[in-house]
């Protein structure tokens, strides 16, 4: 029996170990981004973000700096440093001395000094929030290069992009839910000609790729002079989100207890009253789960914004703004990481606070076009 118990304990360990490994694998990319967004521009460019963890590296010992003249070292010939012989040229490149330390000549031959570095356990904890203020603001930002010159960098105005994303995402979430809830109620509780045909259309359109609609809808919006407006985005996201919304809400609303509604009808309530007073409050879980789904989808969308909002900097949403930095300044990692984290902030808050509803929506759901 003892061996069986040990076998079970081994199995438990294996399962937990494997899951922990996968969880780390899945978390490290986001962690790296988060950590880097708080590191200084120089630090990001010259060392990996994992240097915030304790590691062994050469650290300059400030109080040990050698003044060659005081120490009696003559740079014109070989010098005795750290227990080894070294020429000036070698020392300027950096010299690994026999005593384990690392010596570098800083400055010119006549008035330079020798810095002493030792390999020690260390952490790079030089954090800053200036990446965020630079990305958020619409104002120019002055960056002082190491050599003292000043570089003017335009701010990325994520505040305005964030507001634009809100202006797109909130109505583009609520409007389709409202339209779909009315339709789902109609499909579930009303009898009318064409009902079955229309619902088959809903099911068929669930998987239609939205790419198919982009060119014709763009033409329509052009003739209605809608391109580049939030209204165009609301309409597009409503249209593209409707099949899934209607399907999910119908599945929920059609299973609500019949007796409750019938007694309301007997009391003389109209369809509209029943919908507003009974169905909407009862459907809150389904409405919430689709709302999260649609909100994340719209907030994270890039393609629809690219096509219907276009290049106007006034209306750009946050994903567009981030993609702009990727395209134009793909090496400014301090800006990219901060910007990317800002785009994730709201979805993550929504996600963590409403995870339960979101998962329920996924379980009830199917596929989105």
């Amino acid at each position, binding site marked *: 029996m003892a061996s069986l118990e040990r076998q079970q304990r081994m199995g438990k360990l294996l399962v937990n170990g494997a*899951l922990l490994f996968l*969880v780390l694998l*899945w*978390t490290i*990319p*986001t962690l*790296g*981004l988060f950590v880097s967004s708080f590191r200084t521009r120089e630090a990001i460019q010259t060392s*990996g*973000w994992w240097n915030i963890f304790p590691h062994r590296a050469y650290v300059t010992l400030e109080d040990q700096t050698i003044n060659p003249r005081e120490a009696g070292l003559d740079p014109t010939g070989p010098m005795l440093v750290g227990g080894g012989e070294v020429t000036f040229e070698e020392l300027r490149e950096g010299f690994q001395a026999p005593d384990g330390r690392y010596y570098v000549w800083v400055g010119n031959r006549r008035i330079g000094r020798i810095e002493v570095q030792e390999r020690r356990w260390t952490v790079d904890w030089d954090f800053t929030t200036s990446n965020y203020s630079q990305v958020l603001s619409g104002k120019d930002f002055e960056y002082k290069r190491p050599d003292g010159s000043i570089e003017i960098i335009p701010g990325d105005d994520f505040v305005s992009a964030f*507001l634009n994303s809100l*202006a797109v995402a909130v*109505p583009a979430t609520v*409007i389709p839910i*409202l339209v779909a809830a*009315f*339709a789902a109620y*109609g499909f579930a509780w*009303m*009898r*009318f000609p064409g*009902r079955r045909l*229309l619902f*088959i259309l809903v*099911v*068929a359109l*669930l998987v*239609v*790729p*939205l*790419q*198919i609609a982009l*060119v*014709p809808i763009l033409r329509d919006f052009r003739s209605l002079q809608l391109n580049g407006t939030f*209204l165009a985005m609301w*309409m*597009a996201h409503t*249209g593209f989100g409707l099949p899934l919304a*209607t399907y999910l809400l119908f599945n929920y609303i059609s299973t609500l207890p019949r007796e409750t509604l019938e007694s309301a009808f007997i009391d003389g309530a109209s369809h*509209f009253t029943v*919908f507003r007073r009974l169905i909407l409050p009862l459907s809150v879980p389904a409405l919430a789960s689709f709302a999260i789904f649609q909100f*994340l989808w719209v*907030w*994270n*969308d*890039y*393609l629809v914004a690219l096509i219907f909002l276009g290049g106007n900097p006034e209306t750009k949403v946050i994903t567009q703004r*981030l993609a702009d930095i990727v395209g134009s300044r793909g090496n400014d*990692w301090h800006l*990219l990481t901060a910007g*990317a984290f800002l*785009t*994730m902030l709201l*979805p993550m808050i*929504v*996600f963590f606070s409403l*995870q339960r509803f979101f*998962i329920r929506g*996924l379980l009830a759901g199917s*596929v989105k076009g």
Partner: protein
Amino acid sequence: MQQTTQQDAPGAGARLLTFILRLALPIAILAIAFMVMLAGFNFLRAGDAPKWLVVLVAIAWGVGGVAALYWIFNWIVERMGDPWVGRLQPFVFVGPAAAMLIWFLALPVLRTFWISLFNRDGPPEGWLNWSDLGGSFAALGERFVGLNNYIAVFTDRLMLEAFRNNIMWIVFGATLTVVFGLLIAVLADRSGFERIGKSAIFLPMAISFVGAGVIWNFIYEVRPVDAPQIGLLNALVVAAGGQPQPFPAWTAIAPWNNLFLILIVIWLQTGYAMVLFSAALKGIPGDLLEAGRVDGANEVQIFFRIMVPYIMGTIITVSTTVLIFTLKIFDVVWVMTGGQFGTDVIATQFYRQSFTARNSGYGSAIAIVLLIAIIPVMIYNLKQFREQEAF
């Protein structure tokens, strides 16, 4: 027309009126909604209010406007008296959704197909002139190319490359997403930290593709050989004694550099698969598993002989969803490589042809091919829908 005709058998005039009103209601709701919102927008645009105020007003305007319209139209219909309420009210409820669906998804399928039969300019707009039919059709004929765009789609070297890449996306991306999702669901079910573990795997679902592109670009970042590597992957490669590589742009290993993009989507989508599998696994009756263990099956046998067959329905659902998803993949490729280095896929080709090269005929043909690839799933869905209920 079953119910209304049985009830009160209206005369021909009433029937015609019913039909016209039913058609007109949804269109009227949408048209008025549209005009009201547009007026509001122009008003906002003209003003010089601070941004947050404009945003707040826009949100209230859009949401409130739509809700108010339903209310107003329902009020009008309810005032019309008894037979009309039954005839028209369903169309107040369902009509706007149906009209939006038809405008934004159903008609575009036909319109995109129509555009795909023409050259790069598409069919001339407003080509049909009743007083000069011959001239109209001549103008149409000038741009008409028949199925040539489709021939081009299946012969163009870049398109063939995109098809090959999409197949790689399906073979590796979709399969590994399902495999990892299932593996993690099984592990989490038996582990001591199920909730936290699942949340961590699920978190990337909340991240946009553009954001994920930045995250992974940073992991794949490459520096010159003698400089310290700041990208995690190249740092590991160098630590293991290898040469730093520009991974997604590493054309020497093409087409395998696509795998570095596929990895990103596996990372993003595994959480979705895991959640569905996890719920399905919890639905397996405990005695079924117990019976298997009593019969002496080991855990691997239990997994393949009991669990997998039991959750087959979920596996099919997840697989088709992920499959469609990988078939339409766009943002990741567009942000990471822009389709360079042999990483183009169907959707990036569609975007480039339709909007960058302004070749709308060819772009539309690509969109139609994408739709055709998805039609089997659509048929499967419809079949399921037919079987599951008496609608």
